[in-house]
């Protein structure tokens, strides 16, 4: 699975996720990536989120929208909302994976709770960050 989140000079955010699914998957199984609110979500007032991981858990927990709701209704910061969902809610349910998220201010969060995560980000003219969590 791959994904991107971005904010432009007008303050508009966007999210995109694309996946080849799971090796050896059967019965036309679909994961969270194409499900708006589960694997992909964007709203200017809260954040843009793209998820990667064990899709069934991300669907049940409606992860991407859950992050936005914690910001909108509970007033959490982007980092707090992402950390709570990925390291508390998901882990308790046995869900492996992570997400990337961004808001209108250009705050970037790269949360994950398992190995095999590949990340990169770039803000304004700052140096490009590239990270592989093995």
């Amino acid at each position: 699975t791959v994904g991107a989140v971005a904010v432009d000079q007008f303050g508009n955010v966007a999210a995109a996720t694309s996946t080849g699914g799971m090796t050896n998957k059967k019965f036309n199984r679909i994961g969270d990536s194409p499900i708006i609110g589960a694997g992909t979500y964007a709203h200017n007032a809260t954040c843009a989120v793209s998820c990667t991981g064990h899709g069934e858990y991300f669907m049940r927990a409606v992860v991407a929208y859950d992050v936005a709701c914690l910001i909108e209704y509970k007033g959490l910061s982007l980092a707090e909302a992402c950390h709570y969902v990925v390291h508390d809610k998901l882990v308790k349910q046995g869900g492996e994976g992570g997400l990337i998220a961004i808001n209108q201010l250009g705050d970037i969060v790269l949360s994950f709770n398992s190995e095999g995560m590949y990340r990169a980000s770039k803000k304004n003219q700052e140096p490009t960050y590239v990270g592989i969590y093995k």
Partner: protein
Amino acid sequence: MNPIAIAIHGGAGTILSALMTPEKEVMYRQALQEAVEVGHQILLQGKSSLEAVEAAVRNLEDCILFNAGRGSVFTHEGKHEMDAAIMYGATGMAGAVAGVRQVRNPITLAKTVMQHSEHVLLVGDGAEIFGRSLDLAFEPDSYFFDTARHEQWLAALKADQVVLDHSALPEATTDRKFG
């Protein structure tokens, strides 16, 4: 002026640290750097975040290293079924496709659903017919073939397991650490 920023992530299709050679790591880092800078350049040109995320994901879909687009893993039947979604925070509009085959860039098909239909999610051959009707790029199965993925598939078949992007290969299962 609002800050511009972009972040990307990539799952590599069951490549674990045990299988990650220094040469491979350089390739992955270069691919990630290229994709994030493609998206960042679009933001620098004053274009929208929607165009930036699509361009960055297209770049990753075209790269055989990642489990999406060209580098997609094999299904049980030895095929490639792809899913994608895109959403724009300014309008709340969204587009998505699921279970599509032979589409070169599923993320562009998802954006086409958003911009040229009244739907959000199209699946299977209906989504493919929609994409062909708008002249999107399709590729033969051979375009999606990769030896490493094929070996992962054979290992998963043998172990009768369905394997995640980042989880262990059946025979390469090692004690897993969690971030």
